[in-house]
């Protein structure tokens, strides 16, 4: 068991390390510029006030006056929810479809492995980038915050990263679903990125409107860095909803892939 996942996971190690270093560097940059930003604007929210309303809503900007609020916006909403969310959807979309498009799936399925196992293990290997990005950055954030004399509670830092893991897996599952339905990898990737970004917009733009209910299917609703960093609320129910989403998408992907011709 898990031979395919191990094989895939090993192939993802190098890329995941680069990704992890890049995200940690982004975190370091944000923390490094915050003190001078803070000195310039102090407690008043001039910049926040100047931002268009749509943008504030889009990125769920709560405050830029504290390091927590600043990081929630610049690093977590932008870097984690959008950048990494889309990237994982993209990676997920490349799993099965790429094998099919390049003719590798025939060799894989000629081995005594079930289709369910292929889908599951290909997906499981995405744990490598998902976990990797959440190892280095929290250390950088915690230590960096101490260094700029604006400490953030370790539990909040750990929580904001830990709770991003089901979120990123959910995005990857959207990609996986696209990957089993479409066998042209380019189309699967565009589809996955489009859907993931669409769901982000649905949740961000429809909040506080009559159509807010539509956001219920968006993974974004269930991962809120502001809530975690500013209010210290760690909601396990949200993680549970994300896990349920993952299970549904994974089951649907397996069911679809078992029935289709490759």
């Amino acid at each position, binding site marked *: 068991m898990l031979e395919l996942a191990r*094989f895939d996971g090993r192939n993802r190690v190098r890329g995941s390390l680069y990704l992890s270093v890049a995200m940690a560097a982004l975190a370091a940059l944000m923390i490094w510029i915050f003190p001078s930003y803070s000195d310039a604007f102090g407690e008043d929210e001039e910049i926040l006030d100047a931002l268009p309303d749509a943008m504030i809503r889009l990125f769920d900007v709560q405050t830029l006056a504290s390091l927590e609020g600043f990081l929630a916006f610049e690093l977590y909403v932008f870097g984690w929810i959008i950048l990494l969310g889309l990237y994982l959807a993209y990676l997920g979309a490349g799993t099965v479809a790429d094998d099919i498009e*390049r003719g590798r*799936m*025939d*060799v894989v*399925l000629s081995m*005594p492995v079930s289709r369910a196992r292929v889908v599951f293990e290909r997906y499981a290997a995405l744990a490598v980038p998902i976990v990797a990005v959440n190892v280095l950055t929290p250390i950088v954030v915690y230590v960096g915050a101490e260094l700029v004399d604006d400490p953030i509670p370790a539990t909040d830092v750990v929580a904001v990263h830990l709770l991003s893991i089901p979120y990123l897996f959910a995005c990857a599952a959207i990609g996986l679903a696209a990957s089993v339905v479409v066998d042209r990898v380019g189309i699967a990737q565009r589809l996955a990125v489009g859907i993931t970004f669409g769901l982000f917009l649905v949740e961000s733009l429809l909040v506080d409107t009559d159509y807010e209910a539509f956001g219920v299917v968006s993974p974004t609703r269930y991962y809120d860095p502001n809530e975690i960093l500013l209010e210290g609320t760690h909601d396990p129910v949200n993680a549970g909803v994300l896990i349920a989403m993952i299970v549904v998408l994974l089951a649907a992907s397996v069911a679809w892939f078992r029935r289709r011709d*490759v």
Partner: protein
Amino acid sequence: MAAIELEGLTKDYGEVLANDDVTFDVERGEIFGYLGPNGAGKTTTIRTLLGFISPTDGTARVLGREVTDEAELLEAKRRIGYLPDDPAFDESVTGREILELHASIKGDERSEELLELFDPPLDRTVRHYSHGNVKKLGLVTTFMHDPELAILDEPTGGLDPLMKQRFAEFLREERSRGMTVFLSSHILGEVRRLCDRVGIIRNGRLVAVEPVEALLNRSGKVVRLRAEEPIPRSKLDLEGVYDLETTLSDGGDGPDGTERPAESSVETTATNVDVDRDEVTGETAFTECTFTFTGDVNVLLERLGEYRLIDLSLEEAPLEAVFLRFYGEHDGTDDGEPVTEDGSRTESGRGTANRTGGAGDA
């Protein structure tokens, strides 16, 4: 119980009926050739046998297991080796890592011995493999777990002549150890050298299953020859000469070219050559010709012995021509193959080949 059993296997893609009611068995311990022109439906049958695509109708069993039942088929796959037409592996890893993955999933009984035989460059990443090297790696992964049944889709494509030779020897040895081999090919000679029986598929329909000896007598050779002096056409008035195309150059009475030697090209079937006229014209003699020959080569050489030849080649007849001659009730127009009505391939050179049917224009 046969190694492979197909019963009315049908795969309908809507616009193409890739397999149409295909029924045959592959017995244990034989090398069975699945022969057909490109696009005939060979790969469709093979991919159905491995459960990659599900049949529209009919059933198939490999090693006694239903191919439409995933759990049953998985059981069989432990004992099956499969080589795709164009095998592909993860490009970012080395051949060795590929073999390790395969070994961890299906076991490794004999990769060492296979590596000695086929020798892909294991320490290079697959990205840097040539087409032939990918095929060699594929051969190792196909046989490393010592399968009972090998399913090979065009196994020799991309291999150099030495490797082809080695591969043929290897297969014969495996057969003597009891392995069953089901291989597809569009090359008649290959199938003839390797197989015990052949199944012939054309346009998705199985047209014949027969022992390879039956095919031996049927296929024929393409003969091309060039002579210094004109040879009377009557010399080729032989049994087993088909699709004769002749050219007379230098000294014929064809339309005059100004600088280059004039060429006239006339083609008729051998049976209605006019042998009465004795002046040397494009109708009665030739200096170059091609035809398909199914008779005794010695008789042909005896006939031509008195002429000085510049060039003579005998090649395997193209499969399409053989098909049409012996199995072709339906014409080849619906699958876009370059085949004329009389079965000759349209490969006339610069001369204006005058294609005719059997009725002739002598």
